[in-house]
């Protein structure tokens, strides 16, 4: 047997599930081979750590869904054509997009400096062109970004809610009537809190209390949906 064969048996060796003859062979090899001995030590450390910390970590909320997403991403990436295989009759845009870009550090630094210079010039010209005073521009910018960030957060949370809601709806058919009724009643309480906060925020977009309540209620809704999606 070579080192690769011995290393394939290391996991079973550590678990104690090999025959005594195989154990003796591996022990003899580990004494003679430094690389395999090191591999055995690493694997033992990992196995010991897992045994010591068993039960300390929560399982992922939905492991199956996560693996499905990973598989989808890998498959999508696999479908992207290789950049090295550019057909002879390809257009200039295709060639440009599929070209391998390799820049040295000075080239990269010069490019970044150039981009910063151009953006700065455009910003200064734009400010002069539209006649913004310093403070007015800043405050307007802050308001826009503040409102935009809140809307973004709400949109992101809503996407999460929609995702988990779909999963719950799939499972709901299997629940008994009492469970469905309890779930719907409690969800309506959280929905009412969200709608109330949104109404307040429409009237006063700077209402911090409503924003906090909205965030808390949306988080609660996501958590409740996650919990019940596994039922």
């Amino acid at each position: 047997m070579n080192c690769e064969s011995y290393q394939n048996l290391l996991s079973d060796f550590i678990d104690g599930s090999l025959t005594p003859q195989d154990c003796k062979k591996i022990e003899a090899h580990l004494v003679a081979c430094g690389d395999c001995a090191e591999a055995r030590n690493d694997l033992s450390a990992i196995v010991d750590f897992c045994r010591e910390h068993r039960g300390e970590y929560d399982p992922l909320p939905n492991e199956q869904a996560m693996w499905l997403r990973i598989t989808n991403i890998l498959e999508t990436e696999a479908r992207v054509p290789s950049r090295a295989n550019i057909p002879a009759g390809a257009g200039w845009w295709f060639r440009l997009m599929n070209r391998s870009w390799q820049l040295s550090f000075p080239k990269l630094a010069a490019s970044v400096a150039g981009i910063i210079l151009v953006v700065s010039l455009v910003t200064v010209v734009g400010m002069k062109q539209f006649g913004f005073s310093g403070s007015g521009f800043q405050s307007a910018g802050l308001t826009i970004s503040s409102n935009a960030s809140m809307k973004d957060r709400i949109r992101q949370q809503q996407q999460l809610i929609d995702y988990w809601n779909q999963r719950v709806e799939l499972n709901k058919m299997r629940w008994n009537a009492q469970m469905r009724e309890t779930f719907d009643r409690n969800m309506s309480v959280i929905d009412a809190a969200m709608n109330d906060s949104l109404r307040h925020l429409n009237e006063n977009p700077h209402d911090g209390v409503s924003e906090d309540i909205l965030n808390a209620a949306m988080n609660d809704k996501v958590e409740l949906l996650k919990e019940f999606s596994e039922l």
Partner: protein
Amino acid sequence: MKPHPPTSRTNAALVSFFVLLITVTASAQQKVSRHFPAGKNVRLELKNLTGTITVETWQRDEIKITALMESPAVHFNPRQTDAGLVIDIVSDNRGRENVGDVNFKIQVPVRSSVDLETRQGQITVSNIQGELVRAHVWTSGDITLSGVNAARVFASNTTGNIFFDGEFASGGTYEFKSGQGTITLRLPADCGFHLVATAPVKRISMGQFWHEGMKLMGEGRRVIGDVGDGRASVTVTNYQGQINFFRR
């Protein structure tokens, strides 16, 4: 032989019926009781599906679990860890549909930490003086924490009342959250805490803990301020119900 009068026959039939009914009800329930050795600072984790959870303290260094299981009975596999005891009814019964309620009665040492969850049902914890008391009802169920003196307390439900009668430790963290129900905190007069209480329906009653230094925000929907030395951190949130403070 003298025949029985009709009334005697009716009575006998009724008695038989009730005996049968009691027998059937008893057979539909299953009672499991187990003891586990425990240190003084043991941690108990319980994730229930549906049913009540009652935790009390006793003077022994052991945990006693009594589970009254409705039919169809859940799988019930308590697991001892270095820190204490884990009962995860949710994981133990994953994939099973429509299992019955489990009503737990648990006795633990006084210095225990308890982390309790149920999807529906009441949670009651009495006289715990450990590091952590966490009680979470995912949907409907009252939470009652009495005689609790822990450094960290978290109580939350979606619908149902929350009642806390205990003490706040200096530097401790205390969070109470309900979607719909009344949150009541009963505290000793000399307690000290920093409070952030939020109730969109504007019903926050501070009782004798109110003083002029407290701030009302959002047209009375939030109260912020220190009581006493302000060293414990207390956050109370109620989406659609009221928040009441009482001095013991």
